[in-house]
């Protein structure tokens, strides 16, 4: 088997198989936090950050679990460790930099139990990525998530002033835009292939 290049891992996670638009991971924040550009940007940043942390943790746990021979505890340990690590980081940030906390921190608890994070670490394990590959994968996934969130936020902000019919307002409209974005992202299919 030929190992994937970092570049392809990144492009794949961010554009071709975008976590939100192709894998449907993290739909809740995608629907919920995409109303304003600023919050979307911060949310994206926070998700990327947590993804990198989670990828690191997961890599370590996976090694450990294989070592002790308990791969069946994978899921439960991932979620428990990621949750507590994120909480630790949150406390740490709060103490070290209140400004950063205000920008990122309030999103952290939201993200802890989010499909995108857990999905990332599960995929990363399934694909058998090494440490660096995992980090690149996390960065790509985070960038893709941020991109999707930002695009949606921009469009939704613009539509705040449009005469959207009552019945499609809200989630329906957001989903339809997501669908069209997902169609557009198909243009990236096969990139780097």
């Amino acid at each position, binding site marked *: *088997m*030929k190992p*994937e290049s970092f570049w*392809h891992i990144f492009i794949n996670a961010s554009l071709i*198989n975008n976590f939100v638009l192709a894998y449907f991971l993290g739909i809740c924040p995608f629907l919920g936090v995409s109303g304003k550009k600023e919050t979307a940007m911060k949310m994206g940043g926070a998700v990327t950050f947590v993804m990198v942390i989670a990828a690191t943790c997961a890599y370590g746990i996976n090694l450990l679990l294989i070592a002790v021979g308990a791969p*069946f505890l994978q899921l439960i340990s991932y979620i428990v460790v990621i949750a507590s690590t994120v909480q630790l980081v949150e406390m740490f940030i709060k103490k070290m930099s209140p400004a950063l906390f205000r920008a990122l921190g309030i999103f952290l608890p939201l993200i802890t139990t989010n499909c995108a994070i857990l999905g990332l670490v599960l995929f990363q394990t399934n*694909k058998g990525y090494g440490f660096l590959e995992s980090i690149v994968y996390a960065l790509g996934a985070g960038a893709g998530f941020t991109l999707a969130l930002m695009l949606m936020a921009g469009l939704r902000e613009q539509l705040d002033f449009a005469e959207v019919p009552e019945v499609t307002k809200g989630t329906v409209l957001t989903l339809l835009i997501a669908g069209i974005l997902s169609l557009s992202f198909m243009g990236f*299919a*096969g990139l780097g*292939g």
Partner: protein
Amino acid sequence: MQTMSQADTTEPTISLKMLKAMVGIGIVCACLIALTFEYTLPRIENLKAEALNKAISIVIPGMVTKKTFGVDRNNNLLEVNNKDKSPHLLYAGYDENGKLMGLAVEASGIGFGGVLRILYGYDPEKQAITGFHVLESKETPGLGDKIEKSSDFLENFRALDVSLNEDNVTLKHKITVVKNGAKKNPWEIDGITGATISSRAIGNILADSTRQMAPLINRHKSNLEKN
């Protein structure tokens, strides 16, 4: 403010309670999971092995027993036990007499929708690909997934020529994909209309993999045959 000081006095007991509750639940959970795992493991392994066997017997028709080999750093073929996960897995299939029928080789590459993992059968005697099976694909259902379903396409892999030159190191012809209906030579693959990209990806994967594996297998033929 009163409520605050109350909380302060009760803190140690609460902490202890928290610790107890969590560790307790953790232990119960551990038991539950471990039991489930123990209970289902044999069946899952069975199913997996069956699936693998099925896949291998698709690409090596008529195979009865098999052995698993891996490729180490120095390009040597070594028999490995099933649990090990070393890259470049190959399976050697034998008939009831223990005669080598062919090899099932795993290969992967990038298709239309992401990574494609395939298994193909290689017959060192005929120096040809004898079968082909998709292990994992994200190709578009109804379009790209014709690479696993279209019998016309699978027909290509009944005997796809990958003969080696006399030097036993290089291939005579590179596997190429041509437009549907344009196949003329035994080393060409007839593509799928509407899924050119997926079919070409298969061609590329096969070409890449055979270029490396065919000489290797030929070199270690004896190694494989003794059963």
